[in-house]
């Protein structure tokens, strides 16, 4: 029961505290405005290069921007606890670590879904893109799964925030790695073999592929393999993130470096 309370209430309070600077005047331009222009930018390059339809870019980018909340959010959550000197106070408690960290990840996952939804809506409003009513719930499910896998990956990056300093540098870099490797704007089969191999172990790739197939008429059953793979990748990174968090927690205690900024 206590773990459930830590998961929901603790996660909610931590999000409110760490992201208290997020006012709508900051959230809208940064988390919604920027990503909408990202969709437009790549859709227009696609048109200019004669590469793919608007649908390809709207789906690729709208699913990809769900990673912004997960990657930056988790890096800022764990880095933020360190920055505000609250990390030691949290880690000195006997609280269940899984509930503690997963609770902090949940708001970022939800944020990723919101950002992605807004991306889809503006893609529909501004570009040559539409979905049928039957496709929307399936794509919504795929976005939730993809946002989960990105948040798990972001938690892994955040875990390094217990040890390293410039975690935001790395988080920023990963957003561009995703843009390049995960088939967001480039068809995967046109990438070199080694890049295709890397793309298969990153979050996003299978989610984007599944969403594109659904928009082309496939059913959830047709893309279930891709969705399960995306979920599996997310779980793998979640386990890895948890292991790293525990490892760096123990290391941080031993080296007395938890609050070293």
């Amino acid at each position, binding site marked *: 029961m206590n773990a459930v309370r830590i998961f929901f209430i603790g996660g909610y309070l931590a999000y409110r505290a760490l992201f208290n600077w997020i006012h709508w005047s900051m959230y809208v*331009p940064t988390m919604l405005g920027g990503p909408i222009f990202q969709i437009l*930018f790549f859709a227009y390059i*696609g048109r200019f*290069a004669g590469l793919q339809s608007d649908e390809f870019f709207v789906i690729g980018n709208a699913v990809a921007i769900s990673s912004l909340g997960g990657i930056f959010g988790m890096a800022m959550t764990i880095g933020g606890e360190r920055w505000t000197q609250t990390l030691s106070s949290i880690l000195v408690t006997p609280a269940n670590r899984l509930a503690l960290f997963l609770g902090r990840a949940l708001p970022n996952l939800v944020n990723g879904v919101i950002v992605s939804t807004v991306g889809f809506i503006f893609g529909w409003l501004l570009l040559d893109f539409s979905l049928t009513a039957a496709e929307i719930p399936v794509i919504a499910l795929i976005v939730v799964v993809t946002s989960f896998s990105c948040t798990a990956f972001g938690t892994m990056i955040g875990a390094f925030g217990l040890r390293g300093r410039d975690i935001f540098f790395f988080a*920023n870099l990963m957003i561009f790695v995703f843009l*390049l490797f995960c088939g967001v704007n480039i*068809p995967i089969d*046109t990438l070199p073999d080694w890049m295709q191999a890397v793309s298969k172990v990153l979050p996003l790739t299978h989610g984007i592929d599944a969403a594109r197939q659904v928009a082309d008429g496939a059913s959830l059953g047709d893309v279930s393999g891709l969705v399960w793979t995306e979920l599996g990748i997310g779980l793998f990174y979640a386990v890895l993130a948890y292991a790293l968090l525990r490892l760096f927690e123990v290391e941080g205690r031993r080296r007395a470096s938890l609050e070293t900024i």
Partner: protein
Amino acid sequence: MRHAFRLFWTGWIFNLKNLTLSGFFMLNAAILPIFYATIAYYMFRAGTRSGSLLYVSLGAGMMGIWSSVLFGSGGLIQWQRWQGTLEYVIGAPTRLIFVLLPMTIATASIGLYSLATTLAWGWLIFGLPLDLVHPVWFVIALPAAIFALGLLGLVLASTFVLLRNANSLSNLLEYPVWLVTGLLVALSLLPGWTRPISYVLAPTWGIRGMREAALGGDPAIPVAICLGLGLVYLVIGHFTLGYFEVRARRSATLALR
């Protein structure tokens, strides 16, 4: 006059070194443009339009320059405020514009790393031929673009500081300016109402001058417009900076965050 030049030179060099030591700026200036260039290159290669690799590399380099200006100059006064140096900058007997101008030009100059890395990356990895049609014009067009973007940075520095959430505006303005100034997309593809916006933004003319110098064409007109726009930005920056200074002194909010 000599004093002003000495001040500019010292300020420019100092800020160039200062920014070079910042991991955030180096990521924006040197590493991210490589990603832009690679993504754009693969997109053009997979598409039906046979885009020139040099066209893409120059566009990606200019994207990096704009990002440097946007984040470097847009937050310049705010950063001085956070670091507690704004009072000294304003309190110095030298006019504020002479102190800030080298800083904004330095943020644009850092963008040279973007251009250098995208060209070097293209040459090393993708076999980009570095044959410039008008090399002399390229040498003129590049500093003209840096100069004009640095002056645009002065306008950003002096207007963003009046806004409460200038950082969010910086986050918002990166992609739209890349798009509307035609760095990787032909302007003719964009809706007609965007054209006036494109024309008053220096990156439009900066990239056009550099592309016409590199790929062939007449770079003189875009370079001249780029420089002309720079002077307009200087005048606007002069007035907006003056407004900020008077307002901050009058309301005693210079050091308030």
